[in-house]
């Protein structure tokens, strides 16, 4: 099975039946949400709250705000489901929404500066393993751990700063004391290499 790249159509990961899921695929889940079925929201929360909360907590740095954002995202999605399965996976959509809003909140507060050393240990290639409800999420996590170990440290660090803190390339260049061109090149190579590594694993 390939990772969801590139996928103009519903991604196989999202549309494969999931053993514990009452929904055949993501489109059916979306339909249930649009029908305002509370079961659908429960399913959504049980399978994706960890992703949303973990990312929100990492960016915002405190539990109350992370929970507040998580609530905003899930209730907003339930009230008006803007997710379109044909444009990518649900987890990618939720990650994008969570990241955007969390960084937006940070910017509003003018509180986005972090100490670099915090990040050097933040993305451990081997975080504590936690049982997952969702088979495909477990698969993603394992593949990502492996891919990150194969990524040069400088590539990984730039991707982290860019993704989790929303820093511009010039801000990253300043923080790391590297030329802007180098930062751009490393970030692009890092993302491409990460994708290639993931694809190679998921094809096994």
């Amino acid at each position, binding site marked *: 099975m390939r990772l969801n*790249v590139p996928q103009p159509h519903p991604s196989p990961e999202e549309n494969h039946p999931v053993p514990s899921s009452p929904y055949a695929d993501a489109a059916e889940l979306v339909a249930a949400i649009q029908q305002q079925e509370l079961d659908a929201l429960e399913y959504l*929360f049980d399978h994706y709250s960890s992703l949303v*909360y973990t990312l929100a907590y990492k960016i915002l740095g405190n539990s109350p705000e992370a929970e507040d954002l*998580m609530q905003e995202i899930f209730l907003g999605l339930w009230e008006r489901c803007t997710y379109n399965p044909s444009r*990518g996976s649900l987890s990618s959509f939720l990650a994008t929404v969570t990241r955007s809003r969390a960084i937006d909140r940070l910017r509003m507060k003018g509180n986005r500066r972090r100490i670099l050393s915090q990040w050097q240990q933040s993305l451990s290639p081997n975080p504590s393993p936690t049982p997952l409800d969702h088979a495909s999420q477990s698969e*993603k996590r394992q593949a990502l751990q492996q891919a990150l170990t194969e990524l040069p440290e400088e590539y990984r660090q730039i991707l982290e700063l860019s993704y989790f803190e929303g820093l511009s390339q010039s801000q990253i260049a300043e923080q790391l004391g590297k030329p802007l061109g180098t930062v751009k090149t490393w970030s692009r190579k890092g993302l491409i290499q990460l994708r290639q590594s993931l694809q190679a694993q998921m094809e096994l």
Partner: protein
Amino acid sequence: MVDPTPHNRFEELAAGYVLGNLDSDEMAEFQQLAVEHPALWDEVTGLQETLDLLPFALAESQPQCSARDHIMQSAAQAASATAQQPTARPQTQRPWAKIFGSIAAVTTITLGMQTVHFQHQLAQVQQELAEQKSRMAALPSSTTSQATPRNVVITTTDTFVNQNWQGVEQILVDHRKSLKKGLKAVDIPSNQPIELAALLRAQAPMPSAMPILSQVSSKLLGGSVCTFGQSKGVRIMYDTDQHGQVSFYQIARTQKPELPQLTLEKLYLAIQDGPGGVFWSDGEFHYAIVSDLSADELKELTSSVEIVAS
């Protein structure tokens, strides 16, 4: 003929696009390639999916157990409130009612302001609608080709607009100027509405729930911050298959620029020898979609406006 663009250049540009670090020359090259090779968007999608896997590398955190109950309670209350609402809505739901309802619903849940905000807006809308009708009645009959409570279409000239609605004129001029800039028409290129909203919101007021054109053939190009007199807002641009570039303005309401007394009812202005537009407002923002389309085509395009919780 052999494609002269090597795959690694495709990848590099797509990665730069996803990471938001293309310079202007690279962006021009990217946009050109995207036109010639639509498969480039698949590359973008794949890389975006990859980037969005990064949260899975974090050590998992769990929200408190009460968070789940809280969300389910809020949702159940909202569902119950919806079920209790009378269903005697007009059978043909007005296009703006969908938007208005969405904004009100999101406001109800996220801000807990419940119906107070809604009622305030409703009163404001009713008052402005009355003013709008009064203003329309005072217009020369020759300028009004069709006037219904739902959609007002005015066919007029650039001179009339310039003399009467300077704010409208400024918006039309801004659209025309942006078209002349070609690929540099937007300061923040992005095809991701939520990302774009986050980036624009850092620089200008934005609606809490951003309207977007959801027509499949409309491709989001990006956005720019705009200032009209005392009003600040954003211009979000789309490329449409059939009708060229379309500008969707979202401008914070102030006394100036002088715009028609807009409401959620849509005002279509067909300007002779120039781009026309559709204009409307909610309680806080003016909205305008400007393009070279006819009023009928604008109506069709406007019907594809959806709210993105951004």
